[in-house]
């Protein structure tokens, strides 16, 4: 290009620019809502161009446009307004509420639906409600807020998993946990811990609750059939926060508080109690002629040192308690957006100490959700959650003698925690001093979790959208233990250490096509076809060993004697094709939902891999019928029904093949053994669910709620069918057996007062579920193959894992011996436990009734929110009673007991709960004395707070300032006085390997009081 040409080009360019500028002008104005209040964040576009802007905080905007162009004002929940630019430079707009758009949109799986279009049982819990429970893992917050859903924490150790059951138990030995979906993508959320002996760590704890917009729980088949094979147990959809176009909003949320055990729990005997009871036992056994002589002998023997030292009380329960344990969380976020993009970014920190020494949880997390219009019709969005968690775990799932919680109950009160000079008392014996061990030993769970979800949507033609999603859930896990070589269980081997690494990589690909079309205004259709592929790969590596040269060396490099190495690889895959059709007639007066999913799962053999799942749902919005349209008191009235087939495949990998395992060695050489019995015919477990319900809103929505009934038949259960062990195997997974769950749920909410200054609403829900096994496999003689343990039995006509054991008949007042009913029910008694028949004791460990109660009250800026939870109709069994709560040698000579033992038989005529003490150790005998009604009620949360008025805040540049005081689990009521432990226990059968519902030595749920502040600017 010559210089001359260059100049010519420039002149032309300038001319054209000038021409354009000449026609444009600056238009400005204010946008208000129908009440005349300024509306910030309204999007303003010059139609036909990419030119756009938004209103500021005061509803003002300014934009350049030419005369004759159209400005389009749009805002969620408002009717869109178009204005043509005329002569005036000022265009003020008053927008109107759009009733239809205002209606809540609920994510119902792969799609979102307006509330009135939903045909199934779907419950949405908003972030504010979720925030009322301060805990690392958000599932805790669902307790009491979702009808038909029970949450039972497996432990109060921070970061631990919870058991969630939606509408009962659908399977006996396959999994019962619901499917978790984050932003539309199924993810794994169970325990990531590799050692079952140590505290569990929930993958869900990696998600900062402050980043969650809402949680939707899908209960019925019309919603869950979309998730096909994994929908049977219900689905929990987590939607993370996104940004809104407009000024960037910064938000700070902080709470800081203190926690203690929610209930005191059993109180250990004192040393003085112990002396009294031991003397009594020696006398009862005839070893000494009188209690006085026995006391003298004990004071000359095991109690001598204690006596000489002035009879100090050790009080181990206090020594191991971490009183007023700290719980704090802080999050900082920014959200906003501009032309064609929105974002939400956050940083979070959470720390929680356990209520017992030596255990805590820490998490640092960050998120970035971003959405960008790449072109007019292509949108890219990406949501990313990353976190790193560190949990100081401890041996808690059994009576591990190194655990401080075991020590609390098991250690003799004659042993003092400290020496006179204040140093730790390093005594010998089975139970080492946990004060020293928690300081010098290590057991750490670490998890780094990144969930990244990226999608592209392309509106390629009128009504058509094509989308692609790619999601990675990456979990990097490390677990390490170290026992010091000086004192405790590490001492005999000069210390030991282990370390395990696991990398889990989940990929999900989805491709889908949406087609929305209207035949006319009265008949609207939404069609979606989708293809999905998920892969899960797990890489594991670990090692352990013994013998360190010195203390404090924790790495495997420094081990003198390596004792084990292991590595493994596992994978599973799911592929699916799905079609969804939603038909809405006459403005949603009638709604029809159809879904079909064909899914393949690598857990089954090639021939049995694919299954079909489908659902039909229908709703009738009566309030839209002419005869109710003008009703003053009916605002919403919907009849809905759905029926569908869902599946469950939560069994171990590769169960369909007969397999050799090689994870054995003998004499230092590799060895093999038959490892899996195999069953080529294995396929899906299926559930057919009927759900009918009524949703209503009456008297201007002063009263609203819903009533639902459900009936779920599960068949072809993936059951660990007991085999004759002469085969070499205890069980084989087969598709056999049937199970039914039915029940109802009522949700109701009263907006008692709703004025500008004051509001009061009271809501509640109650649900009942009945679980019954309807069919089990039979053997060649036609006899049912029941599964019986010392506590439970699985048999037709009873709930799964129904309690089954001999019945305790009390203590004989004449002899002081505990007796049992021979026939298991009544009448003749026996002192020979093996003579007493085991019988069903009624119920299992899963609550049959759950209820929640919510109250929220506000007056001007002050507010009060409360949530209560009730669970009942179930029973739990006391673990470890042989050693801690029986009148034998263990509580008084070897270990330690509870003060409940003081209620014991001493002489003929005594009516006591416990028999006469003996110095003999007794064998395990499990019977109904230690089975308790587990009904309980809890004040889950109570919050009082104050929102500083916005006028006062403007002067300091804030848009929101809220301070509050929040209590969690402040009150607990337990029905059965004899139940000393917290009634919330692990109710998972771990694929049929344990009897669910036994109290253990885990950390109980905690009671906390926190002070919090929310600031937006």
């Amino acid at each position, binding site marked *: 290009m010559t210089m001359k040409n260059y100049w010519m080009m420039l002149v032309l360019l300038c001319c054209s620019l000038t021409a354009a500028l000449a026609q444009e002008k600056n238009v400005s104005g204010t946008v208000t809502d129908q009440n005349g209040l300024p509306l910030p964040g309204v999007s303003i576009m010059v139609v036909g161009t990419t030119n756009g802007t938004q209103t500021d905080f005061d509803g003002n905007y300014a934009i350049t446009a030419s005369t004759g162009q159209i400005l389009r004002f749009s805002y969620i929940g408002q009717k869109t307004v178009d204005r043509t630019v005329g002569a005036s430079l000022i265009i003020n707009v008053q927008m109107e509420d759009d009733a239809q758009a205002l209606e809540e949109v609920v994510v119902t799986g792969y799609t979102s639906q307006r509330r009135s279009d939903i045909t199934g049982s779907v419950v949405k819990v908003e972030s504010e409600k979720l925030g009322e429970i301060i805990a690392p893992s958000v599932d805790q917050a669902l307790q009491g807020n979702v009808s038909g859903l029970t949450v039972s924490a497996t432990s109060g150790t921070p970061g631990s998993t919870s058991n969630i059951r939606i509408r009962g138990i659908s399977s006996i030995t396959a999994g019962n946990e619901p499917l978790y979906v984050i932003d539309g993508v199924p993810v794994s959320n169970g325990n990531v811990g590799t050692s079952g002996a140590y505290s569990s760590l929930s993958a869900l704890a990696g998600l900062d609750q402050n980043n969650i917009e809402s949680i939707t729980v899908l209960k019925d088949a019309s919603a869950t059939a979309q998730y096909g094979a994994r929908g049977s147990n219900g689905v929990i959809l987590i939607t993370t926060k996104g940004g809104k176009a407009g000024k960037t909003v910064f938000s700070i949320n902080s709470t800081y508080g203190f926690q203690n055990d929610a209930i005191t729990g059993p109180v250990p005997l004192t040393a003085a109690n112990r002396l009294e009871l031991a003397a009594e036992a020696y006398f009862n056994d005839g070893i000494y002629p009188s209690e006085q002589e026995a006391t003298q002998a004990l004071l000359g023997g095991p109690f001598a040192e204690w006596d000489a030292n002035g009879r100090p009380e050790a009080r181990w329960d206090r020594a191991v308690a971490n009183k007023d344990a700290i719980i704090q969380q802080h999050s900082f976020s920014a959200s906003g957006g501009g032309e064609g993009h929105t974002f939400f970014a956050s940083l979070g920190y959470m720390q929680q100490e356990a209520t017992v020494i030596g255990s805590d949880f820490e998490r640092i997390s960050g998120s970035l959700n971003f959405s960008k219009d790449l072109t007019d019709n292509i949108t890219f969005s990406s949501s990313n959650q990353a976190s790193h968690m560190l949990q100081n775990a401890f041996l808690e799932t059994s009576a591990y003698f190194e655990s401080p919680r075991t020590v609390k109950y098991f250690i003799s009160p004659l042993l003092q925690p400290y020496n006179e000079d204040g140093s730790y008392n390093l005594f010998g014996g089975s139970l080492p001093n946990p004060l020293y061990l928690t300081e010098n030993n290590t057991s750490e769970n670490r998890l780094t979790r990144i969930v990244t979800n990226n999608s592209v949507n392309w509106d390629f033609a009128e009504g058509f959208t094509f989308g692609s999603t790619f999601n990675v859930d990456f979990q990097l896990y490390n677990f390490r233990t170290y026992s010091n070589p000086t004192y405790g269980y590490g001492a005999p081997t000069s210390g030991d250490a282990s370390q395990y690494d696991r990398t889990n990589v989940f990929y999900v690909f989805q491709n889908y096509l949406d087609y929305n079309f209207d035949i006319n205004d009265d008949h609207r259709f939404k069609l979606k076809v989708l*293809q999905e*592929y998920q892969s899960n790969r797990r890489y594991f590596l670990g090692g352990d060993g013994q013998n360190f040269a010195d203390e404090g060396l924790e790495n495997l490099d420094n081990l003198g004697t390596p004792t084990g190495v292991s590595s493994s690889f596992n994978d599973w895959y799911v*592929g699916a094709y799905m079609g969804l059709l939603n038909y809405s007639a006459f403005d949603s007066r009638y709604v029809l939902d159809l879904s079909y999913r064909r899914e393949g799962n690598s857990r089954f053999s090639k021939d049995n891999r694919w299954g079909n799942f489908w659902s039909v749902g229908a709703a009738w919005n009566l309030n839209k019928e002419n005869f109710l349209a003008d009703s003053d008191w009916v605002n919403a009235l919907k009849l809905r029904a759905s029926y569908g087939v869902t599946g469950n495949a939560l069994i171990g990998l590769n169960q369909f093949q007969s397999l050799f395992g090689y994870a054995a060695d003998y004499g230092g050489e590799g060895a093999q053994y038959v490892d899996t019995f195999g069953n080529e015919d294995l396929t899906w477990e299926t559930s057919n669910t009927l759900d009918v319900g009524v949703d209503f809103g009456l008297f201007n929505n002063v009263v609203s709620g819903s009533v639902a009934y459900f009936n779920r038949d599960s068949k072809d259960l993936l059951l660990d069918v007991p085999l004759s062990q002469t085969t070499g*195997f205890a069980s084989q997974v087969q598709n056999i057996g049937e199970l039914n769950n039915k029940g109802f749920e009522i949700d109701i909410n009263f907006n008692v007062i709703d004025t500008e200054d004051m509001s009061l609403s009271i809501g509640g829900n109650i649900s009942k579920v009945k679980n019954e096994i309807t069919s089990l496999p039979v053997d060649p003689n036609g006899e049912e193959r029941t599964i019986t343990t010392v506590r439970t039995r699985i048999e037709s006509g009873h709930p799964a894992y129904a309690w089954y054991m001999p019945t305790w008949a009390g203590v004989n007042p004449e002899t002081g011996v505990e007796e049992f009913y021979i026939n298991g029910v009544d009448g003749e008694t026996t002192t020979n436990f093996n003579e007493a028949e085991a019988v069903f004791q009624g119920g299992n460990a899963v609550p049959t009734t759950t209820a929640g109660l919510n109250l929220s009250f506000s007056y001007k800026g002050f507010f009060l929110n409360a949530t209560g939870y009730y669970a009942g109709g179930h029973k739990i069994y006391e673990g470890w009673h042989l050693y801690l709560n029986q009148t034998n040698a263990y509580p008084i000579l070897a270990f330690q007991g509870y003060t409940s033992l003081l209620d014991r038989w001493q002489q003929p005529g005594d009516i006591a709960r416990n028999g006469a003490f003996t110095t003999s150790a007794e064998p395990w005998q499990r019977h109904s004395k230690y089975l308790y009604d587990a009904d309980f009620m809890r004040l889950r949360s109570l919050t009082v707070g104050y929102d500083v008025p916005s006028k006062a805040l403007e002067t300091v540049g804030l848009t929101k300032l809220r301070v509050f005081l929040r209590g969690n689990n402040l009150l607990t009521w337990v029905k059965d006085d004899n139940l000393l432990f917290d009634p919330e226990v692990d109710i998972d059968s771990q694929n049929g390997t344990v009897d669910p519902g036994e109290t253990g030595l885990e950390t109980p749920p905690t009671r906390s009081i926190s002070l919090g502040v929310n600031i937006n600017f």
Partner: protein
Amino acid sequence: MLLAAAGLLLGSCTADSLEPTLSQNKSVEGSVTKVENLYSILKGAHNTLTGSGYYGRDMIATNEVRSDNCFSNGNSGRFTTQGEYEYNANTGFVWDNAYYVIANANIIINTDVTTLEGDIAYGEHLQGAAMILRALAHFDLLRVYGQQHAGGNLGVPIVTEFKGEDLFPPRSTVDEVKAAIYNDLETAFGMMDSSFDTSKTIVSKYMAKALESRVAVYFGDWGRAVSASEAVINSGLYSIIGADSYVSSWAGDGGSNVLFELAFSGADNQGPNALSYIYRFPADEPGGYGDLQVVSTVIDLFEDGDVRADILGYQDGGTRLRNMGKYPDTATGADNIPLFRYEEVILNYAEALLETGGDALTQINLIRANRGVFIYASVTKEDILNERRKELMFEGFRYDDLVRTGQSIPYWGSTENSLGTIGYPNNLFAYPIPISEINANSNMVQNDGY
């Protein structure tokens, strides 16, 4: 277009991409192609024997705690149920492990070795070894669950196939099981070639005869006991351990008196579930498990100078009599556990000779001459049983010796308080069939009294 293409690509790969990877497993069908594979499965079966639910602890400990050698002090709550004869159908024992050994042995035995790569003769030798393990497991099941000392004649199911036709077998009679055991042992002896025996931790040819002599003594088949014992003796492969080495031999592996011992090591042991850990506290004072305590009068059985008394010792300030010498590695349980010792064969032989009018005296004195005690001039059945008790103490023989000779058994509570005696015969001498078996298989008959 690009996205649509990507979608199609993904769609096409879905159907084929659902095949799981077998990284650390192999399918049973088709993966046994070499003789070496049989050896690997055989080692796997040995590994099952080392488990704490079998010979790694329970098989030996349960018998000892039910005998007049030991009682359970309940320090960790273990073995009180067994020691006080309080077991019921929920009390687990060796049923599952023994049949698991049988299942693996059956895979070896039923493989057609001619189809395998490798030395066919070695393959047959390994099959013989598997038959010995199958016989051992059937014998263990029979002596635990059989009704021979409970006034009945039911034995246990005989299983000779993995995943065979009958997955719900009924119990065979005691005699049928015994016959199957003898049959396996005779067949095994014929198939095996002792030149392939290179390790004492793998079942060897003469173990077939040692086990046959043990079974024959148990059932009083004296003629068979004599000939089986002689076969072992005449092999010349083994010798009685000398007095000087008796105690120390327990801390070492592969002694000249050992026919077969289970391998344990620093890297492969049962840790706190080890046999050693149940016999004693890790330190002198109560701690760990150490539930199996020795009845305090047992020390009086030993004559002055008997080196076997040195196996015993005291803990807890000299107040608790203990097995300190057998399986001495308490910290990790890394000592091998001998299951067949030459001394037992000699004692079997002596007893069988006594019963058949042979020269028992010479045999019993072979033992005594090596234990620091005087030589008998004459010998009675009681002398032999006493000698067995002292020689094989804590190795799991005493309970069977008591019941097979029809004696009542004294038993104790956790403070060594006498709980009386269990008279012979007794329902308690046949362990209850596990309730899981009864529930899964209605062809199974429970023993009386459970």
